[in-house]
């Protein structure tokens, strides 16, 4: 299976870099997501991302007040990017392992298409495994 098979929708929860970690926490809990995209300031700027892990490691563990911390100071930026949609899922997973992340930003022709996560990979692999185990020789395509 390839990266293009697990693409999702563009991220809907997007915050500005000068908002606070508390805004990110609120967005995470209220939207039931574990990461929030940080928008670019202008066309020369890079996108960032903030995850529950960033908030725990860089805000809470340091004893900082989430309401006092700007997202631009704690977000991961620039994103770890994948732009070859034909790449095998194995290499998508390897890229995550190499970078120590659980999410990759997928760009196509300069546009942010979506964020793929380790859960997306796991679900795709699960489908494949069920396909080959459950129905005798009825192997899933690809």
């Amino acid at each position, binding site marked *: 299976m390839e990266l293009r098979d697990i693409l999702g929708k563009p991220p809907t929860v997007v915050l500005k870099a000068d908002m606070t970690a*508390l805004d990110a*926490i*609120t967005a*995470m*809990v209220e939207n039931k997501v*574990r990461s929030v995209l940080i928008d670019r300031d202008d066309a020369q700027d890079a996108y960032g991302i903030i995850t*529950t*892990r960033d*908030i*725990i*490691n860089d805000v*809470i*563990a*340091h*004893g900082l007040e*989430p*309401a006092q911390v700007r997202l631009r100071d704690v977000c991961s930026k620039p994103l770890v990017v994948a732009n070859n949609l034909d790449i095998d*899922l*194995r290499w998508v*997973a*390897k890229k*995550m*392992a190499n970078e120590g992340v*659980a999410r990759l930003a997928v760009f196509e022709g300069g546009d942010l298409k979506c964020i793929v996560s*380790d*859960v997306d*990979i*796991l*679900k795709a*692999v*699960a489908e494949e*495994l*069920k396909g080959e*185990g459950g129905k005798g020789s009825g192997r899933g395509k690809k």
Partner: protein
Amino acid sequence: MTEMDRTLRSMVKDFKMPSIDANATVKEAIIRMTDKEDYALLVPRQDPHDAYGIVTKRDIVYKVIAEAKDPGKVKVKDIMSKPLVILTSLDLDVRWVAKAMADSGVSIIAVFDKGDFYGFVTSTCIIEAIYYSEKRIKLDDQANYVSC
């Protein structure tokens, strides 16, 4: 009332973590995780001298899929983390729970109270605890608008 309870005690969830046998294959682990949307599975100990282990989505993606290994052949025991990262003081402030997670690079910690298993605390528990305590402070600040 301004002092919020931000201790470990207030955050621990006494949920039953789904478990999987150490000798099960990663394939079984993947299917169990995705079916129930529980991306961490506890690996019970074999005897009282053994330690508990844990296998997470990260272990599977990093150690099996990224290395193109066959999930049907790799055993859970080959990729799990063991023993668990543990905290034993329920009065610990959220800050130190977060620090323990950051230092050990995990997002789930098992909590024991006087030698007995008490529950788990996850990164999501911490985020939610902060969210609700901040929300409570806000409500307290505008207490006259709150009717309940």
